[in-house]
Every structure is written in structure tokens, then in C-alpha cells.
């Protein structure tokens, strides 16, 4: 079965998402963007253009560039909204023979469905290119206030585009789905959707797996574009005051200013002040003129405060007015608030909503993409993806084995999805060691003794050999039921031991929490302890290397070098078992410097004093004991 896509068919921009691995994912369009302008055009050469390409020629071809067609779809020509929009939309609009609306693009008249279908067809084609497979079905979102005729028309548009429309979904419901709120019982949710050109407010009530729209409100002609326009006007005015130049007549200058205004608006969502810097914006008799102006967040907020206040007022009315105008709730009845639309990134807007409801609104999901994501979630439910998710457990705590010095060396870190397996090779800590103990522990503390022991066993029969030489392969394997199998195998002899631990994942919630809290509480002291142990282990290695080097060099070693190294060895031995990691490291470093003289001495003798610099000791190829080799 081919994938069902979720489409947010917006007034200004549209987006497409699909479920993948149980998560909604936005599909980029052919131009590499995550949203597509909802614009279609017939170019002057008669070509059909959709999306960004249509937008790029809109200035010089306004009569044949159709945007905001969502405002017209499914409406009667006599609808007052149509009359209102007809006045400002630059393309021709007329009544269809059935009393509906027709728009002129090129030399032909089209129904709004056909224009929407052109946009949907591009979204479909781009989604197919991304997915690498045919797409035949879709969930399309519409505003909650759309009536039957508008919904039917949107569905028809999908069918014209070659999509079987599995569901027409309300935009606020989609947003709630994206936040996983369909599972909550008896919740009252407000969706505050401040888009580019429209402001929609919806009050939802979630019951037993149903989402009911209790009220809708807003302003179909209020949006983020108004904010941009306000900033732009302010900048043009200020510049006129400062320089006496009107740049609103210069197309390029105005375009640069428009982009700068939008960028400044975005930056002021995170910064308190931004600088608009447009060199050579214009020129007069005195030479070139530049545009440099600081814009603060406070100034921006004062410019658009009226819009924000209005949106809050409309929200309040929609929630509290008695039905049918509003939902007839108290503001305090509302359990959740969701923010949708790019403009809701503005901190002043978030604050206004927070102040109204007395709670933090949800804004974790990209507000430009949340509706498309919710449509994909609905598509996933229809497809069966969401219902049939195979729930896989994770390891609640790390599983480790104890290594030299009592350190817990993690084999399977916490939050690893099971089933999983991991193999690592270890070695012996002492010369002629013939057995190793495998101690399996669970927990986050760096020292094995502080964690919970799950099992221990001994692998013996290792042939006597220098430390670090035997290779003991330890394998951890957890199956889907949380049963852990641990085996240790001596690669030299093939001897093997293993243990099976039941239910390594089913600790009680309290146990897990307790163990995690303990780990956090002891983090600093544990870190110190671990550092000390590591220093001690390294000191052991250094001593081993130094003593071996002395033995190997034997009689060739000059007496002064021998005495020097011996002294350093004694120094290190003295501090090695103490609690001062810094002292251990210092002693180790001076020993390490001293043993280099062994190599130098040996080379000097053999080469008659030439090339002393190349004299690396033979111990350099010695494998580092206890350093696990990653398999």
C-alpha cells in the first residue's frame, strides 16, 4: 500500500508531511524548501507555474498570478467575504454559471478548486520525488470554520490533482494530533493560529478518541504579513525623516528593505535589538546614501501591539461568549493552549497568550509545520502505522562489567532499544593470570561496587601469559523480553562461560528513579573516585612498563640511568595507593620522562652514539592493558 501523505493547504503557504518510523516528517519540495507558496500562475509565455516559481514572477504578472485562492474556494460569488476579497485581489474574479466563483488565469477562467488542484498536484509530485514512490492518498487540512461546501470543494481539488482524499481534517485538530493530545480525556484545548494572512482561534474538546470543535473565531484578514508591512512602513517613514528621501518608489530598494524588515522581525524573537544595515540603498546629489537603523524589540512590540491586543480580545470572546458565537467556557476551563503559525514565535505574542490563560502554551513543534505534521499523524492512523507500532522496550539503566580497579565499564548504555547485542574484548591485568571474574552490574555510577550486581562468574583455564596478551571476548545480548545473556570467551583456547539473567529491564519505576537519582547525587564524588582509579591503573601500567624495560635492557644500562629510574619507580610506588590523583599523575610523568633515558642509553650503545633521537623503547608496542578493543 502506498503512503498516505498529510497536506496543510494554507492560504499563503502549504506543507506536506508523512509518517516515517512512527514520527511525522516534513517532505521538502523540489526547490529544497519545507513550505511551498500556495500560488499558481500562467506565465506570459503561457506556461503553468506553481509555488516559488509563480511567486517570482508575480510582480510583473499580477493579473495571472493566483494567490489566496483558499479565501474563495467553495464560496458563492454573492458571499460578502468574496465581495470583500474581490476588491483587493489583483486578478479577475467573476460569478460562475452555478453562482460560484471563477478566477481568470491566462486567457481562461478556472474554478478555485482547479487552482488548488494545481497546487496540490505540485505538492503530490514533489512528495513522490522525495519518497521515491507513487502517492495516491492524502489527508488535507482546512480551517475549522469551513462549511460543507468549502470542505467538499477542497476534497474535489484533491481528486482533480489525482489524490484520493481519505479525510478532510480540521487544522486545529491536526495541531492537537501533532502534540498527541487526542489521547487525553475531557480536555479543553485552545488553538491559537496566527498565520501569514489569517488569524484563527479554535476551541476543541477531546472526548473518547474524538475531537469536537466547540467554537471558532478570529480574523481572516489579520496575519504576520501585517506585521511586516507595519515594520516596513515605519522604516520608510524614519528614513524619510532622517534623510529626506522616499525609498518607497524604488522597487529594488523597497525589496531590500522588505527583506531586511522580515529578517529584523525574526531576529527580534531571540535578540533584544537588531541593526538594519543596507549600504547604498539610494543616492542624491551629495552621493550615495546608506540605511543604518537600530530596531529594538520594544519598538517592534509597540508597532504591532494593537494587533496582538486584538488577537487576545478575539480569543477571549471565542472562548467565553455563549454559543453559538463562542464556546461558553470560562478562561480557567481551558486545559491546553497550542500555538500555530510562524508569527507565534514572537515573544510578546507568547506572553500575551500566557497572560490570558495563566499557563504556558505548547510551542515545541515548529509552528509553521505543526498542522502538516498532524495531518500526517491522521494519515498514519488511517494507514495503520500508528496503531500498529511495535512497542519496543529500552534498557532503563546501563549494563556494565567491572574492570580493573573496580570501574564499571558500560557495555549497553541506558535507553538502548532492545533487542540488542554488544561485544567487547578485554584482557588480563597481571602476568600469568589464569582466570578472570566477569561481574555484571546495572546502574549509572562509575564504580561497579555502587551499582546493582546482576551476576558474576569466573572464566578460568587461561594459559599463563604476560598481562594484556590474552583476549577475552565478552558478549552482552538482550532479547526483546529483557533477558540478558552474558558470555566470556578466551579467544586463545576457545574456553567459554556464560550466564543468563532474567528480566534485566523490568525494574520497578521507583527503583529506576532511585538509582538515577543516586547517580546524579553522587556524580561529582564518583567522578573524582573514577579519576583516582584511572590514575592508579595508569600508574600500574607505567610501573609495569618501566620494570620490564629495565629488565630487558639488563646489563647494557648505565648505572646512573638505572638509579634514576629506580628512584622514580619508588616515588610512584609510594604515592600510587594514596588518594591524591594529582600526585600520582605527577610521579607517573616524571617516571615516564626518566624511562625514555633507557631507550636512549640502549641506542647509544648499539649505534655507537648515533641517532639517539630514534630510540623508542621496545615497550612502545606493548598493548595497553585493560583498554578494551572495540569490536
Amino acid at each position: 500500500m502506498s503512503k498516505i501523505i498529510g497536506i496543510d493547504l494554507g492560504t499563503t503557504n502549504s506543507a506536506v508531511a508523512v509518517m516515517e518510523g512512527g514520527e511525522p516528517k516534513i517532505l521538502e519540495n523540489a526547490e529544497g524548501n519545507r513550505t511551498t507558496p500556495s500560488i499558481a500562475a500562467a506565465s506570459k509565455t503561457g506556461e503553468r507555474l506553481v509555488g516559488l516559481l509563480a511567486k517570482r514572477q508575480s510582480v510583473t504578472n499580477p493579473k495571472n498570478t493566483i494567490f489566496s485562492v483558499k479565501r474563495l474556494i467553495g464560496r458563492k460569488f454573492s458571499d460578502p467575504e468574496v465581495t470583500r476579497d474581490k476588491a483587493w485581489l489583483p486578478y479577475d474574479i467573476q460569478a460562475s454559471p452555478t453562482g460560484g466563483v471563477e478566477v481568470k488565469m491566462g486567457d481562461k477562467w478556472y474554478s478555485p478548486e482547479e487552482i488548488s488542484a494545481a497546487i496540490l498536484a505540485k505538492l503530490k509530485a514533489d512528495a513522490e520525488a522525495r519518497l521515491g514512490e507513487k502517492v495516491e492518498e492524502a489527508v488535507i487540512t482546512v480551517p475549522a470554520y469551513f462549511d460543507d461546501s468549502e470542505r467538499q470543494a477542497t476534497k474535489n481539488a484533491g481528486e482533480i490533482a489525482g489524490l484520493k482524499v481519505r479525510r478532510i481534517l480540521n487544522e486545529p485538530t491536526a495541531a492537537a494530533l501533532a502534540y498527541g493530545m487526542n489521547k487525553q480525556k475531557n480536555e479543553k484545548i485552545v488553538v491559537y493560529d496566527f498565520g501569514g494572512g489569517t488569524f484563527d482561534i479554535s476551541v476543541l474538546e477531546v472526548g473518547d478518541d474524538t475531537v469536537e470543535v466547540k467554537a471558532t473565531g478570529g480574523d481572516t484578514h489579520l496575519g504576520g504579513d501585517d506585521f511586516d508591512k507595519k515594520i516596513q512602513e515605519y522604516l520608510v517613514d524614519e528614513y524619510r525623516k532622517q534623510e529626506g528621501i522616499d525609498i518607497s518608489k524604488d522597487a529594488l530598494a523597497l525589496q531590500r528593505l522588505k527583506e531586511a524588515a522580515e529578517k529584523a522581525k525574526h531576529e527580534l524573537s531571540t535578540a533584544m535589538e537588531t541593526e538594519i544595515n543596507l549600504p547604498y540603498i539610494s543616492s542624491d546629489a551629495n552621493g550615495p546614501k546608506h540605511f543604518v537603523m537600530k530596531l529594538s524589540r520594544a519598538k517592534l512590540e509597540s508597532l504591532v501591539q494593537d494587533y496582538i491586543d486584538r488577537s487576545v480580545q478575539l480569543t477571549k470572546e471565542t472562548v467565553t461568549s455563549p454559543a453559538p458565537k463562542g464556546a461558553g467556557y470560562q478562561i480557567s476551563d481551558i486545559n491546553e493552549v497550542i500555538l500555530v503559525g510562524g508569527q507565534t514565535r514572537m515573544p510578546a505574542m507568547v506572553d500575551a497568550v500566557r497572560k490570558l490563560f495563566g499557563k504556558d502554551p505548547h510551542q515545541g513543534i515548529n509552528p509553521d509545520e505543526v498542522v502538516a505534521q498532524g495531518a500526517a499523524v491522521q494519515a498514519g492512523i488511517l494507514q495503520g502505522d500508528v496503531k500498529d507500532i511495535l512497542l519496543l522496550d529500552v534498557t532503563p539503566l546501563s549494563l556494565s562489567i567491572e574492570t580493573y580497579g573496580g570501574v564499571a565499564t558500560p557495555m549497553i548504555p541506558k535507553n538502548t532499544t532492545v533487542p540488542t547485542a554488544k561485544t567487547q574484548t578485554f584482557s588480563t591485568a597481571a602476568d600469568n593470570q589464569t582466570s578472570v571474574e566477569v561481574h555484571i552490574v546495572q546502574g549509572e555510577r562509575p564504580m561497579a561496587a555502587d551499582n546493582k550486581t546482576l551476576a558474576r562468574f569466573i572464566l578460568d583455564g587461561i594459559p599463563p601469559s604476560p598481562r594484556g596478551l590474552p583476549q577475552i571476548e565478552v558478549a552482552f545480548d538482550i532479547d526483546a523480553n529483557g533477558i540478558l545473556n552474558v558470555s566470556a570467551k578466551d579467544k586463545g583456547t576457545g574456553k567459554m562461560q556464560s550466564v543468563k539473567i532474567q528480566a534485566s529491564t523490568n525494574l520497578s519505576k521507583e527503583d529506576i528513579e532511585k538509582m538515577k537519582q543516586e547517580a546524579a547525587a553522587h556524580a561529582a564524588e564518583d567522578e573524582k573516585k573514577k579519576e583516582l582509579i584511572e590514575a592508579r591503573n595508569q600508574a600500574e601500567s607505567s610501573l609495569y612498563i618501566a620494570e620490564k624495560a629495565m629488565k630487558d635492557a639488563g646489563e647494557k644500562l648505565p648505572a646512573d640511568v638505572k638509579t634514576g629510574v629506580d628512584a622514580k619507580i619508588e616515588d610512584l610506588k609510594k604515592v600510587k595507593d594514596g588518594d591524591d590523583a594529582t600526585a600520582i599523575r605527577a610521579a607517573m610523568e616524571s617516571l615516564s620522562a626518566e624511562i625514555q633515558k633507557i631507550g636512549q642509553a640502549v641506542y647509544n650503545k648499539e649505534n655507537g652514539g648515533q641517532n639517539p633521537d630514534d630510540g623508542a623503547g621496545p615497550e612502545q608496542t606493548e598493548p595497553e592493558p585493560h583498554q578494551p578493543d572495540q569490536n
Partner: protein
Amino acid sequence: MSDEPQNIMNEPELEAADPKLLSEQLAAAERQRDEYLAGWQRAKADFLNYKKEEMARLQDAIKYGSEDLVKDLISVLDNFDLALRSLERSGPVEKGIYLIRSQIEDILKKRGLARMEIKPGDPFDPATMEAMTETPSDLPPGTVAEEIEPGYRLHEKVLRASRVILSKQKEGSD
């Protein structure tokens, strides 16, 4: 040795079982097997596809990782050109200034940035150009009369469309 008694023990049991029940159990087991196999195959395929996509995404991330920075630097380059043009109008410009400009351009080129070459008379292509306005000219209507801001590609992607003024018929010329 132990095989034989087991056979003897097992056979009567098999016969005693209800064949209908057995075939139902078998059917159920087969159904379950098919379901698990399908689930396993799907999970495996999902993982392999995910791996492939992640690799592609990672490569893209590396390739287009500097996109935002490059985009910001393009506008510096634009302003540099505006400054140069302004300086040129008031006399010869120190050669070093041009060298600095080409230095910036070279750095960006090495990161995959390429300027799109557009000349007057080229047909308008919305895939790479953005029409800013129209002006009467002798060039064929609808073609590029002037490029006012260059467009750039980052690898294959159009990072910024060229901003162009389109030609329109001079009034009274037809």
C-alpha cells in the same frame, strides 16, 4: 537410545488430538508466523531505508551546512559591488579593493557557490530569476532588460534567484 521410547510415547498422543483443533492451531501459528515475518521484514527494510536516508541527509548536511553563512555573505558581496560602482563613478579605484572582492568570491566559490550568468535579452526563467519590475526597451518583451542583483547557486540548489527587470514594449511602438 532415547529416541525410540519418545516416539512410542508421542504417537498415541498425536492420534488422540482433535484433527480439527490441530489444524486450527496450525493455521493460527501460520498466521502468526506470517505476521511476524512481515513485521520483521518491514522493520529490517525500514532500518535499511532509514540508514540510507540518514547517509544522504548527512551528506546534504555537510554539503549545505554553510548555506546560511554563505547566504549572509552574498549580501555583503552585493554591497561590496554597490560600493565599487559608486567609487568607480568618482574616479579610478585602487586595484587592491578589487583583489579583496575576488578573494571573498574565491572563498565562497570553494564552498560550492556559483554566480548565475544572465545577460540582457535572455528569456525570463522563474526557476532562476525573480522579476522585480518592467521597463520599456528595444529587447523582446518579457526578456531580461537588466539584472539588478546577481543570483547564486550553492551546488545544485538555487540559493538566491537573480533579481531582474523585464523588458516591455515601448509605448506606441506597435
